[in-house]
Protein backbone atom coordinates (compact mmCIF):
# COMPACT_ATOMS: atom_id res chain seq x y z
CA UNK A 1 0.00 0.00 0.00
CA UNK A 2 1.44 3.37 -0.97
CA UNK A 3 0.04 6.64 0.21
CA UNK A 4 -0.28 9.46 -2.24
CA UNK A 5 -0.27 12.37 0.11
CA UNK A 6 -0.84 15.75 -1.53
CA UNK A 7 0.23 17.63 1.59
CA UNK A 8 3.08 20.05 0.85
CA UNK A 9 6.49 18.90 2.15
CA UNK A 10 6.86 22.18 4.05
CA UNK A 11 3.61 21.56 5.93
CA UNK A 12 4.75 18.05 6.77
CA UNK A 13 7.99 19.37 8.26
CA UNK A 14 6.06 21.91 10.33
CA UNK A 15 3.66 19.19 11.49
CA UNK A 16 6.55 17.05 12.73
CA UNK A 17 8.31 19.93 14.46
CA UNK A 18 5.16 21.26 16.12
CA UNK A 19 4.19 17.77 17.29
CA UNK A 20 7.55 17.44 19.05
CA UNK A 21 7.19 20.88 20.63
CA UNK A 22 3.64 20.10 21.76
CA UNK A 23 4.76 16.86 23.42
CA UNK A 24 7.67 18.56 25.18
CA UNK A 25 5.98 21.84 26.15
CA UNK A 26 2.61 20.72 27.52
CA UNK A 27 2.56 18.80 30.76
CA UNK A 28 0.83 15.40 30.66
CA UNK A 29 0.71 15.02 26.88
CA UNK A 30 1.79 11.50 25.88
CA UNK A 31 1.12 11.47 22.14
CA UNK A 32 0.56 13.90 19.29
CA UNK A 33 -0.34 12.36 15.93
CA UNK A 34 -1.18 14.27 12.74
CA UNK A 35 -3.15 12.09 10.32
CA UNK A 36 -4.97 12.32 7.01
CA UNK A 37 -8.77 12.16 7.15
CA UNK A 38 -8.57 8.59 5.82
CA UNK A 39 -6.38 7.48 8.69
CA UNK A 40 -2.74 7.60 7.66
CA UNK A 41 -0.23 9.17 10.06
CA UNK A 42 1.67 12.09 8.53
CA UNK A 43 3.78 13.10 11.54
CA UNK A 44 3.86 12.14 15.18
CA UNK A 45 5.59 12.53 18.50
CA UNK A 46 4.76 10.01 21.18
CA UNK A 47 6.12 8.55 24.41
CA UNK A 48 4.55 5.16 23.68
CA UNK A 49 2.03 3.55 21.38
CA UNK A 50 1.41 3.01 17.69
CA UNK A 51 0.91 6.13 15.55
CA UNK A 52 -0.82 4.14 12.78
CA UNK A 53 -3.57 2.92 15.09
CA UNK A 54 -4.05 6.34 16.68
CA UNK A 55 -4.30 7.82 13.16
CA UNK A 56 -7.00 5.35 12.07
CA UNK A 57 -9.09 5.96 15.18
CA UNK A 58 -8.70 9.74 14.94
CA UNK A 59 -10.00 9.71 11.35
CA UNK A 60 -13.06 7.65 12.35
CA UNK A 61 -13.87 9.98 15.24
CA UNK A 62 -13.43 13.01 13.02
CA UNK A 63 -15.62 11.55 10.24
CA UNK A 64 -18.39 10.66 12.68
CA UNK A 65 -18.23 14.13 14.26
CA UNK A 66 -18.43 15.64 10.79
CA UNK A 67 -21.61 13.75 9.91
CA UNK A 68 -23.15 14.64 13.28
CA UNK A 69 -22.46 18.34 12.74
CA UNK A 70 -23.96 18.15 9.23
CA UNK A 71 -27.11 16.35 10.40
CA UNK A 72 -27.58 18.91 13.17
CA UNK A 73 -26.86 21.88 10.87
CA UNK A 74 -24.06 23.06 13.10
CA UNK A 75 -21.52 23.94 10.41
CA UNK A 76 -18.12 22.39 9.92
CA UNK A 77 -16.84 20.14 12.69
CA UNK A 78 -13.91 21.39 14.76
CA UNK A 79 -13.03 19.06 17.59
CA UNK A 80 -13.98 16.10 19.76
CA UNK A 81 -12.77 15.49 23.31
CA UNK A 82 -12.94 12.06 24.88
CA UNK A 83 -12.75 12.48 28.64
CA UNK A 84 -11.65 9.40 30.56
CA UNK A 85 -10.93 8.26 34.12
CA UNK A 86 -7.21 8.90 33.78
CA UNK A 87 -6.83 11.51 31.08
CA UNK A 88 -8.33 12.54 27.78
CA UNK A 89 -7.94 12.40 24.01
CA UNK A 90 -8.64 15.34 21.72
CA UNK A 91 -9.18 15.22 17.95
CA UNK A 92 -9.03 18.51 16.04
CA UNK A 93 -9.80 18.98 12.33
CA UNK A 94 -7.49 20.98 10.08
CA UNK A 95 -9.00 22.18 6.81
CA UNK A 96 -6.38 22.82 4.12
CA UNK A 97 -6.72 23.10 0.35
CA UNK A 98 -4.23 20.31 -0.40
CA UNK A 99 -5.16 17.91 2.39
CA UNK A 100 -7.73 17.55 5.15
CA UNK A 101 -5.95 16.58 8.35
CA UNK A 102 -6.74 15.68 11.94
CA UNK A 103 -4.56 16.35 14.97
CA UNK A 104 -4.94 13.80 17.74
CA UNK A 105 -3.55 14.49 21.23
CA UNK A 106 -3.55 11.97 24.06
CA UNK A 107 -2.92 13.24 27.57
CA UNK A 108 -2.81 11.68 31.03
CA UNK A 109 -4.49 12.88 34.22
CA UNK A 110 -1.82 15.47 34.97
CA UNK A 111 -2.66 17.47 31.82
CA UNK A 112 -4.91 20.53 31.96
CA UNK A 113 -7.76 20.29 29.46
CA UNK A 114 -7.88 24.02 28.72
CA UNK A 115 -4.17 24.21 28.11
CA UNK A 116 -4.27 21.32 25.61
CA UNK A 117 -7.38 22.78 23.95
CA UNK A 118 -5.68 26.16 23.51
CA UNK A 119 -2.49 24.63 22.19
CA UNK A 120 -4.22 22.23 19.76
CA UNK A 121 -6.29 25.10 18.28
CA UNK A 122 -3.10 27.11 17.85
CA UNK A 123 -1.42 24.10 16.20
CA UNK A 124 -4.39 23.68 13.84
CA UNK A 125 -4.16 27.34 12.79
CA UNK A 126 -0.43 27.08 12.12
CA UNK A 127 -0.95 23.88 10.14
CA UNK A 128 -3.87 25.29 8.14
CA UNK A 129 -1.76 28.25 7.06
CA UNK A 130 1.56 26.41 6.57
Amino acid at each position, binding site marked *: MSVNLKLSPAAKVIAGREAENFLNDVNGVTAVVIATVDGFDVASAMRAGDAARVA*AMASSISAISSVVSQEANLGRNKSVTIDTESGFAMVYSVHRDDAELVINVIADGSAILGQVAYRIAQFARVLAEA
Partner: protein
Amino acid sequence: MNEYKILFTGTMGAGKTTAIGAVSETPPIVTDVVNNDQSHTKERTTVGLDFGQFTLDSGDRIRMFGTPGQSRFDFLWKILSKNALGMIILTDNSRPDPLGDLRVYLEGFADDLDIMPCAIGIGRLDDHPSPSMDDYIEELARHNRVLPVLQVDVRKKDDVILLIDTLLAQLEAGMFGE
Protein backbone atom coordinates in the same frame (compact mmCIF):
# COMPACT_ATOMS: atom_id res chain seq x y z
CA MET B 1 -42.69 -5.52 13.99
CA ASN B 2 -39.14 -6.76 14.16
CA GLU B 3 -36.01 -4.69 13.79
CA TYR B 4 -33.02 -6.34 12.21
CA LYS B 5 -29.50 -5.00 12.25
CA ILE B 6 -27.46 -6.13 9.28
CA LEU B 7 -23.77 -5.48 8.77
CA PHE B 8 -22.18 -4.79 5.38
CA THR B 9 -18.48 -5.43 5.23
CA GLY B 10 -15.88 -6.42 2.63
CA THR B 11 -13.12 -5.05 0.44
CA MET B 12 -12.51 -1.35 0.01
CA GLY B 13 -14.23 -0.36 -3.24
CA ALA B 14 -16.54 -3.41 -3.33
CA GLY B 15 -19.57 -1.17 -2.88
CA LYS B 16 -20.69 -1.26 0.76
CA THR B 17 -21.69 2.41 0.77
CA THR B 18 -23.33 2.01 -2.66
CA ALA B 19 -25.29 -1.06 -1.54
CA ILE B 20 -26.71 0.69 1.52
CA GLY B 21 -27.51 3.78 -0.56
CA ALA B 22 -29.28 1.62 -3.18
CA VAL B 23 -31.91 0.33 -0.75
CA SER B 24 -32.10 2.89 2.05
CA GLU B 25 -35.43 4.72 2.38
CA THR B 26 -33.85 7.57 4.29
CA PRO B 27 -30.82 9.48 3.03
CA PRO B 28 -27.94 7.24 4.15
CA ILE B 29 -25.52 8.50 6.77
CA VAL B 30 -22.12 8.38 5.11
CA THR B 31 -18.68 9.09 6.59
CA ASP B 32 -16.52 9.00 3.48
CA VAL B 33 -13.42 11.14 3.09
CA VAL B 34 -10.73 11.77 0.48
CA ASN B 35 -8.77 8.58 -0.20
CA ASN B 36 -4.96 8.81 -0.14
CA ASP B 37 -4.30 5.08 -0.63
CA GLN B 38 -2.78 4.66 -4.08
CA SER B 39 -3.52 0.95 -4.30
CA HIS B 40 -7.14 2.00 -4.92
CA THR B 41 -8.17 4.49 -7.56
CA LYS B 42 -11.39 5.47 -5.84
CA GLU B 43 -11.68 9.07 -4.76
CA ARG B 44 -13.43 8.67 -1.43
CA THR B 45 -13.52 5.98 1.22
CA THR B 46 -15.53 5.23 4.37
CA VAL B 47 -13.58 5.67 7.61
CA GLY B 48 -16.43 5.68 10.14
CA LEU B 49 -19.65 3.92 9.32
CA ASP B 50 -22.51 3.94 6.84
CA PHE B 51 -26.11 3.74 7.98
CA GLY B 52 -29.37 3.23 6.13
CA GLN B 53 -32.84 1.85 6.80
CA PHE B 54 -35.46 0.02 4.88
CA THR B 55 -38.80 -1.72 5.47
CA LEU B 56 -39.68 -5.22 4.34
CA ASP B 57 -43.10 -6.12 2.93
CA SER B 58 -43.85 -7.73 6.30
CA GLY B 59 -43.38 -4.36 8.02
CA ASP B 60 -40.14 -5.50 9.61
CA ARG B 61 -37.42 -2.87 9.60
CA ILE B 62 -33.85 -3.42 8.47
CA ARG B 63 -31.14 -1.20 9.88
CA MET B 64 -28.02 -1.46 7.74
CA PHE B 65 -24.56 -0.62 9.02
CA GLY B 66 -21.52 -0.51 6.74
CA THR B 67 -17.95 -0.85 7.99
CA PRO B 68 -14.77 0.62 6.55
CA GLY B 69 -13.05 -2.03 4.39
CA GLN B 70 -9.44 -1.54 5.42
CA SER B 71 -8.21 -3.70 8.27
CA ARG B 72 -6.62 -0.72 9.99
CA PHE B 73 -10.20 0.08 11.00
CA ASP B 74 -10.76 -3.34 12.58
CA PHE B 75 -11.51 -1.68 15.95
CA LEU B 76 -14.75 -0.45 14.31
CA TRP B 77 -15.56 -3.92 12.94
CA LYS B 78 -15.96 -5.17 16.51
CA ILE B 79 -18.11 -2.22 17.53
CA LEU B 80 -20.38 -2.35 14.49
CA SER B 81 -20.90 -6.12 14.48
CA LYS B 82 -22.25 -6.09 18.02
CA ASN B 83 -25.87 -7.34 18.11
CA ALA B 84 -26.06 -7.73 14.34
CA LEU B 85 -28.41 -10.45 13.16
CA GLY B 86 -26.48 -11.13 10.00
CA MET B 87 -23.58 -10.05 7.85
CA ILE B 88 -23.02 -9.46 4.15
CA ILE B 89 -19.46 -9.66 2.85
CA LEU B 90 -18.88 -7.95 -0.51
CA THR B 91 -15.89 -8.71 -2.72
CA ASP B 92 -14.58 -7.10 -5.90
CA ASN B 93 -13.48 -9.63 -8.53
CA SER B 94 -11.47 -7.02 -10.43
CA ARG B 95 -8.97 -6.88 -7.55
CA PRO B 96 -5.67 -8.82 -7.76
CA ASP B 97 -6.59 -11.42 -5.11
CA PRO B 98 -10.31 -11.50 -4.29
CA LEU B 99 -10.06 -14.77 -2.34
CA GLY B 100 -7.26 -13.26 -0.24
CA ASP B 101 -9.55 -10.27 0.36
CA LEU B 102 -12.36 -12.62 1.45
CA ARG B 103 -9.99 -14.33 3.91
CA VAL B 104 -9.38 -10.99 5.69
CA TYR B 105 -13.08 -10.81 6.62
CA LEU B 106 -13.56 -14.53 7.30
CA GLU B 107 -10.74 -14.25 9.83
CA GLY B 108 -11.53 -10.73 11.11
CA PHE B 109 -15.17 -11.67 11.78
CA ALA B 110 -14.58 -15.34 12.69
CA ASP B 111 -16.30 -15.04 16.10
CA ASP B 112 -19.34 -13.33 14.56
CA LEU B 113 -19.60 -15.84 11.73
CA ASP B 114 -19.93 -18.62 14.32
CA ILE B 115 -23.16 -17.12 15.62
CA MET B 116 -24.81 -15.23 12.74
CA PRO B 117 -25.82 -15.90 9.15
CA CYS B 118 -23.76 -14.49 6.33
CA ALA B 119 -24.07 -14.08 2.57
CA ILE B 120 -21.22 -13.35 0.16
CA GLY B 121 -21.81 -10.95 -2.73
CA ILE B 122 -19.30 -11.03 -5.58
CA GLY B 123 -19.05 -7.86 -7.63
CA ARG B 124 -17.68 -7.38 -11.17
CA LEU B 125 -17.79 -11.14 -11.88
CA ASP B 126 -19.02 -10.61 -15.46
CA ASP B 127 -15.88 -8.80 -16.54
CA HIS B 128 -13.58 -10.79 -14.25
CA PRO B 129 -14.69 -14.44 -14.28
CA SER B 130 -11.79 -15.67 -12.14
CA PRO B 131 -12.02 -16.66 -9.32
CA SER B 132 -15.31 -18.38 -10.08
CA MET B 133 -18.23 -18.95 -7.72
CA ASP B 134 -16.89 -22.49 -7.20
CA ASP B 135 -13.50 -21.08 -6.19
CA TYR B 136 -15.27 -18.96 -3.59
CA ILE B 137 -17.18 -21.96 -2.25
CA GLU B 138 -13.94 -23.95 -2.00
CA GLU B 139 -12.26 -21.07 -0.18
CA LEU B 140 -15.15 -20.97 2.29
CA ALA B 141 -14.89 -24.74 2.77
CA ARG B 142 -11.22 -24.32 3.69
CA HIS B 143 -12.48 -22.13 6.55
CA ASN B 144 -15.17 -24.69 7.44
CA ARG B 145 -17.91 -22.35 6.30
CA VAL B 146 -20.89 -23.15 4.11
CA LEU B 147 -22.32 -19.81 3.02
CA PRO B 148 -24.46 -18.66 0.11
CA VAL B 149 -22.43 -16.96 -2.62
CA LEU B 150 -24.22 -14.64 -5.06
CA GLN B 151 -23.16 -12.61 -8.04
CA VAL B 152 -24.34 -9.05 -7.46
CA ASP B 153 -24.32 -5.57 -8.86
CA VAL B 154 -24.79 -3.52 -5.69
CA ARG B 155 -25.94 -0.51 -7.69
CA LYS B 156 -29.14 -2.50 -8.31
CA LYS B 157 -31.65 -2.40 -5.49
CA ASP B 158 -32.98 -5.88 -6.32
CA ASP B 159 -29.53 -7.43 -5.99
CA VAL B 160 -29.00 -5.92 -2.55
CA ILE B 161 -32.46 -7.02 -1.42
CA LEU B 162 -31.66 -10.52 -2.63
CA LEU B 163 -28.59 -10.57 -0.37
CA ILE B 164 -30.68 -9.41 2.59
CA ASP B 165 -33.41 -11.97 1.83
CA THR B 166 -30.76 -14.68 1.72
CA LEU B 167 -29.73 -13.74 5.26
CA LEU B 168 -33.29 -13.63 6.53
CA ALA B 169 -34.06 -17.01 4.95
CA GLN B 170 -31.22 -18.52 6.97
CA LEU B 171 -32.64 -16.97 10.13
CA GLU B 172 -36.16 -18.18 9.39
CA ALA B 173 -34.88 -21.67 8.65
CA GLY B 174 -33.65 -21.67 12.25
CA MET B 175 -30.06 -22.24 11.27
CA PHE B 176 -28.96 -19.88 14.01
CA GLY B 177 -30.10 -19.69 17.62
CA GLU B 178 -31.92 -16.58 18.74
